[in-house]
C-alpha cells in the first residue's frame, strides 16, 4: 500500500505485477512490459501479435536496450517475489530476480527502477553462486505495534461494524444512541481486544476479522464494562493458542459457537452459552467420517497400519502362527523399546506398496470385517460350499472398487504417492504414503468397533 501511494504521488509510469498471479517469469515479463508500453514508456514493437514477445531475461534485456532513449524514469514493482523461489522453478526464478537486481551491471542505461516486494529477506534468495555479488537496497517494513493496530482499527469502525450478523443487528444489542457513544464503545472494545490478541498475532487482517466477530458479543455486555466479555475473549485466545490463528480454525470456532447458541435457544434459552472447542465435536471431521463408505474406512485403517508399522511386523501381527515366546521383562530392554517406539513415532509414517496395503486390508477384513454378521451372505457362501471364506475375501479385496477408492483417496491427498514416480498406480509395487492423522484414524476405528492400538507396533 505504501509503495502504491508513493508511486501514485510521484506521477511517473509504473507497472505492478504480482509474481503469485503470474507464476512464471515469462508471464511476469509480459505483464510488466505490457503495462509499461500502455503508459507510453516503451515504444510499440513489431511482431506477429503486435506485442512484446519475451521468453526470458535475455529478450527483456534487448527490449530494455531499445528503450534507453525514454526521458522519464519508470518503476516496475513485482509483488510476492518469494513465490518465484518456491517449487520446481525455483532456480529459474532466483536467476531472474538476480538479473533484475543486477540490471545496472549490464550497462543498458535505461531509466527503469525495479522494486521487489517480498515477505522474506534478500539473503534467503541466495544460493551460493558468484552472481550474488550485490544485493538490492533493502527497506524493512516493521510490523505494527499495539498502538498502531488500535489506531488503524479505530479508523475502520464504519467498515468493520456493518460486518455484524443480521441477528445481532436486529436484536438491538448494538443499537446505540449517538455516534459519539458508538465511537467510545468501539474504543473501549479495542482497548480490551487488541492487547490480548496481540499475544498471539499482530496480523491486521486477523484482528479485523476477530474484532468484527467479537464486537457483537462485547456490545451485549457493555453495561458491565466488558466484565462478562473478558472470559469469552479469554476462551478465544485459548483456542488460538491451542489450534492456531488461521482463518479456518477460527471460522470453525465461531461456527461451533453459533450452533451452541442455536441449541441453547431451542432448549429455552436457560443454558449458559459456552465458548470452547471441546463442547461440540469437530463438525467437519464428523461429516467426513460418516459420509465415507465402509470399504473406504477399512482401506484408510489398513493404510494407517501399513504406514506406521514396518513391513517386517506384518507376519507378527496378522500371521497365522503367532509365536508367543515368554520372556522375562527386562526393565532396561523395555525402556529401550519404549524409546525406539517414541523415536519411530516422531519420525513419521513410512511408505508401503499397494500390494502390502491390500494384504493388510484382507487380514483386517478377516479379523474385524462385519461380513460374518451378514446372515444372507453366510447363507450364500454355505450354499456354494465355500466355508473358508478365503476366496470371497480375495475377490472382495482385489475388486475394482478397492483400487478405485485408493485412487480417490490419493486424489484427496489422504494417501500420497511414495518414492516411485514412474510406475502406474495399478501396479502393485507402486508406493503410497498415508497422510491420515492419529486422531482421525482413532475416530474411524472407534466408529467401526476396532481397537487400532492392537495393530500398531511401530517397530
Amino acid at each position: 500500500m505504501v509503495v502504491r501511494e508513493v508511486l501514485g504521488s510521484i506521477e511517473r509510469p509504473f507497472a505492478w505485477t504480482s509474481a503469485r498471479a503470474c507464476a512464471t517469469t515469462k508471464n511476469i515479463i509480459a505483464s510488466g512490459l505490457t503495462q509499461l508500453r500502455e503508459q507510453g514508456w516503451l515504444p510499440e514493437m513489431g511482431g506477429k501479435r503486435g506485442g512484446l514477445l519475451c521468453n526470458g531475461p535475455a529478450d527483456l534485456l534487448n527490449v530494455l536496450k531499445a528503450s534507453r532513449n525514454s526521458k522519464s524514469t519508470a518503476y516496475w514493482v513485482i509483488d510476492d517475489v518469494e513465490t518465484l523461489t518456491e517449487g520446481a522453478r525455483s532456480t529459474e526464478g532466483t536467476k531472474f530476480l538476480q538479473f533484475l537486481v543486477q540490471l545496472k551491471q549490464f550497462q543498458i542505461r535505461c531509466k527503469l527502477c525495479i522494486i521487489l516486494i517480498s515477505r522474506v529477506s534478500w539473503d534467503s534468495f541466495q544460493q551460493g553462486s558468484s552472481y550474488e555479488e550485490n544485493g538490492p537496497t533493502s527497506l524493512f517494513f516493521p510490523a505494527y505495534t499495539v498502538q498502531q493496530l488500535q489506531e488503524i482499527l479505530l479508523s475502520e469502525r464504519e467498515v468493520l461494524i456493518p460486518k455484524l450478523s443480521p441477528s445481532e443487528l436486529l436484536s438491538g444489542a448494538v443499537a446505540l444512541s449517538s455516534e459519539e457513544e458508538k465511537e467510545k464503545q468501539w474504543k473501549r472494545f479495542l482497548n480490551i481486544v487488541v492487547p490480548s490478541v496481540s499475544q498471539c498475532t499482530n496480523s491486521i487482517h486477523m484482528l479485523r476479522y476477530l474484532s468484527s466477530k467479537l464486537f457483537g458479543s462485547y456490545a451485549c455486555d457493555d453495561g458491565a464494562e466488558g466484565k462478562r466479555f473478558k472470559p469469552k475473549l479469554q476462551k478465544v485466545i485459548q483456542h488460538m493458542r491451542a489450534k492456531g490463528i488461521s482463518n479456518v480454525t477460527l471460522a470453525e470456532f465461531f461456527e461451533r459457537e453459533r450452533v451452541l447458541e442455536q441449541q441453547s435457544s431451542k432448549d429455552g434459552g436457560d443454558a449458559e452459552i459456552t465458548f470452547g472447542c471441546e463442547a461440540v465435536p469437530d463438525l467437519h471431521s464428523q461429516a467426513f467420517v460418516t459420509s465415507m463408505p465402509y470399504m473406504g474406512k477399512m482401506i484408510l485403517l489398513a493404510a494407517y497400519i501399513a504406514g506406521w508399522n514396518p513391513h517386517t511386523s506384518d507376519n507378527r501381527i496378522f500371521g497365522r502362527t503367532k509365536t508367543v515366546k515368554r520372556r522375562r521383562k527386562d526393565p532396561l530392554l523395555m525402556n529401550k523399546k519404549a524409546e525406539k517406539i517414541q523415536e519411530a513415532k516422531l519420525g513419521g509414517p513410512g511408505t508401503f506398496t499397494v500390494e502390502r496395503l491390500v494384504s493388510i486390508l484382507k487380514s483386517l477384513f478377516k479379523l474385524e470385517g462385519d461380513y460374518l454378521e451378514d446372515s444372507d451372505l453366510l447363507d450364500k457362501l454355505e450354499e456354494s460350499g465355500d466355508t473358508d471364506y478365503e476366496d470371497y475375501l480375495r475377490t472382495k479385496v482385489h475388486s475394482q472398487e478397492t483400487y478405485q477408492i485408493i485412487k480417490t483417496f490419493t486424489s484427496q491427498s489422504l494417501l500420497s504417492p511414495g518414492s516411485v514416480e514412474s510406475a502406474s498406480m495399478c501396479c502393485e509395487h507402486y508406493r503410497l504414503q498415508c497422510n491420515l492423522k492419529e486422531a482421525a484414524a482413532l475416530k474411524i476405528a472407534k466408529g467401526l468397533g476396532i481397537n487400532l492400538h492392537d495393530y500398531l507396533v511401530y517397530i
Partner: protein
Amino acid sequence: MEERRGGLRSREKITDAFSKGRHGRRGKRKASAVRVDEAKRSTEEEQRPPSSRRARVGRRSDQQGGSGGVSKPALRKFLQILRRRLLNDERGRKCRESSEHFQESCEKLDNLIRSTIIHGTNNSVLLVGAPGSAKKEVLERVLGDLLAEFNEEGKSASVGVVRLSGLLHSDECSALREIARQLCDTWDLNFLKSASFSTNLRFLREILSELDKGHKTVIFVLDCLDLYTTKQKQGLLYNLLDALQGSQAQAAVVGLSSRHDCLELMEKRARSRFSYRKVVTPAPPPEEGIRVLKELLTVPEGSAGDDGLLSGSDPSLQLSGERDEEEVKAFNREVAAMLCSEESKAVLDRFFKCNATIYTVEQLVLGLICSMDGSVSTLTLPMLRAACGSMSVTTLVKQGLQMSVLDLTMLVAMQRLEKRGKESYNFQHIYKEVESLRSADQRFGQEAALESYVRLVEQKFVETIGDHRRQQEFRPSRLLMMGCEIERIIAGHPNCPESLRRSAANIFL
C-alpha cells in the same frame, strides 16, 4: 595567490589544532578547557529564562542548522549532491580506478588479450576474485582501452567483443543465438533470428575462420562462468574452447567468477581445452573501504559537476559563489575530522574488517546521508555507530525481533536440537522440544505450533529438506539462522518470557 596561501595556512592551523586536541598534551588541556567553557555556557544557558533561550537557539539553528559552519539549506543541498553522486553508475569505477591492485590486474589482463590481438595466440583466462573486488571494472577498463586503440572509427572493427552472462544465456541454444547476433551486429552481417542451433554453431566456426583470415579478433566474455560450469552438460564451453583449439581462429575467452573452484567444476573435455591462466583480483583491504567512504562523503569543491558525474543535473545543485565554497569546505572539513577521530576509526575498522566491498560502503554512505538528512546536522559519532550497527543486523534478526512468542519458542527448540547434534529434525521433534520448554503460562497446542512452523518455513527461517511428498509435520527440516542471530533476537525481543530467555541462555553457555 596570497589569499590562497593564507587560506591553506589557516586550514593547516585548524587541522593541526584538531590533531593536537586529539593527541597532544597541550591539545588535551585545550580540549578540556573548551569542554569546561561549554559546560559553563550551558549552565548559564539553563539559568536564563526559557523564552530568551528558545529565541537564541531558534536564531542559531535557522542560520547554521545545528552544525558548525554549514547552514541548513546548504547541508540539504550537499546531501542531495552526495546522494546523486552515490546513485550514479560511474561512482564505482571512479572510486576504484586509483587503487594499486586494480592497476596490477588491469595490466595482467591487458597483456593476455593484447597478445591475442597482436600475435594471434588464442587465449583463455579466468578473472576470479571475491564479490565486490572490481572484476567487472578491470575487464571494462581493459576492453575499453583495447577497443579504443585497435578499432578505428568509420572502418570495420578489428576487435569485437561478445558478452554472455550465465544469468541470461544459461542454455546452449540461446547462448549461440546471442553469439551470432552480437557477431552480426559488430561486423554488419544479416542475423537470422530463426536459425537453428546447428546453423548457429556452423556460423560461429565459419565466421571465426573468416575473421582469422582478416586478422580480426573476437573476445568472448563469459560473465558468471560458474553458472555454465555447474551444469551437467557444458556444450557451449566445449564448443567455444574447441573452436579456439584450432589454428583457424583468433579469439580469447575471458571468464568472470567469484568461485575459485570454477575450473575444477568444468567438464573434462572443456577443462582440457581451457588454459589455466587466472587473474586474481584481491578483495579490497579495510583501508580501501575507509578511503572510498571518505571520498563518497566529500562534496566536490568548485562546482558540483566538476567530476563529471552531475553534468546536466538540477541547476539548484550547482555550487557557485564564495559563500557556497566556504560552506563546502566547512562541510568537508567536519566530515573529515569526524572520520579521522580515534573513536570513528575504531568503529570503521571493526566494520571494514568484516565487509569492505564497494557495495557495503555504498550502503553505509546511504545510511549516513539519510541520518544526516533526518537530524539536519553534519556527521556525528552516534550516527556512524548507528549506521554500522544497523548494517550488521540482518533482516532475519529484524523480523525475529517482531515475531510472536510461539515462533520464538520454536526457534529456540530447533537450536536446542541442533546443539544436541541433530542435523535435521521434523515438526514432531520440534514440538516435543517445545513441550519441554514451555512454562505454565506459555502453553501452545500442536495445531498452533504447526501453524507457526509453516510460517517459519514460509519466511525462510527454516528450510525443509528431503522428500517433499511427505506430510509437512514429518518432513525433515533445518534452521537457516545462526546461533548468534537467535541469541540476538532473544536478547532484544520485547515480549520474550523470562523462562524462554533462561532456556536459551543455557544453550548458548
